[in-house]
């Protein structure tokens, strides 16, 4: 089945992903597409310990994850693909086969001095705003939603910063 959720979350694997989304989705695997973590065995072990034993975690560079999307989509289990930045997700979308990423969930981009708050859990730099627009221009539906029970905030509202 196609990847159930493409999520941008600067915490990568954490409670909202494993429990908040993982349980209702009956998650079978997580693709963690992050160039830094892909080269760090210790970081991989850390994230693996945070995931139930029945959920597989595949660590990959962004480019390798884009190339492997069709293989992940052939998996019968529900899966989540995570990137830690908007830029990484944009790279993945551009490198993946056309149309293979139809929607992207902005799950958490947290406070940094050069970012402006848009939502409770979304803070963006001007460059990151441009990257979100580029995702939309590539045909991807971009919404922000930290947990499944929350309202999915459309991109226009994210950028206006007027949705809670």
């Amino acid at each position, binding site marked *: 089945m196609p990847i159930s959720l493409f999520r941008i979350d*600067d*915490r*990568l*694997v*954490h*409670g909202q992903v*494993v*429990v908040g989304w993982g349980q209702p989705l009956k998650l079978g695997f997580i693709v963690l597409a992050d160039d830094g973590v892909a080269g760090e065995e*210790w970081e991989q072990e*850390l*994230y693996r*310990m*945070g*995931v*139930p034993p029945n959920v597989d975690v595949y660590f990959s560079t962004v480019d390798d994850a884009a190339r492997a999307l069709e293989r992940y989509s052939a998996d019968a289990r529900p899966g989540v693909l995570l990137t830690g930045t908007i830029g990484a997700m944009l790279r993945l979308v551009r490198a993946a086969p056309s149309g293979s990423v139809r929607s992207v969930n902005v799950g*958490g*981009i*947290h*406070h*940094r001095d050069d970012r402006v708050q848009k939502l*409770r*859990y979304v803070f963006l730099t001007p460059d990151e705003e441009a990257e979100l627009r580029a995702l939309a221009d590539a045909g991807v539906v971009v919404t922000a939603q930290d947990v499944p029970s929350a309202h999915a905030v459309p991109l226009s509202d994210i950028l206006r910063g007027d949705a809670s």
Partner: protein
Amino acid sequence: MADDSQTPSPHVPRRAIVTGHGAFPEGLVSAVQQITGRGEMLVAFSNAGLGREEIEAGLRACMENVHASVIFTDLPGGSATLAARRVLRDRPELTIVTGANLATLVDFVFADESMSAADAAAHAAERGRVALATVHA
């Protein structure tokens, strides 16, 4: 974050950080204070609204401020626990207890002064585990 301005009383010098999601840390510390009057031994630090680096930096700052050697967390796979494990990497004297509950913390604040922080944490973890039970009519 809990009020850290009070100096712990002489017979309870051991201190710990309680961290996790939402108001979990503050709630547990508040409950410990209500039950034991020893809430000053614990410092609450929530991960709410914080990114990976900020959570880790916050934990390190808490540890420096209160000389804590134990961190209690909620979910074993949560971002607070992952940040604590990053701190542990270069602070081997640290002990992390995941899945902490009120019974855990109450046991910790009453641990005998002669116990090491690591032993007190281990004892508290076991007490918290025992406290989890199902009750039927």
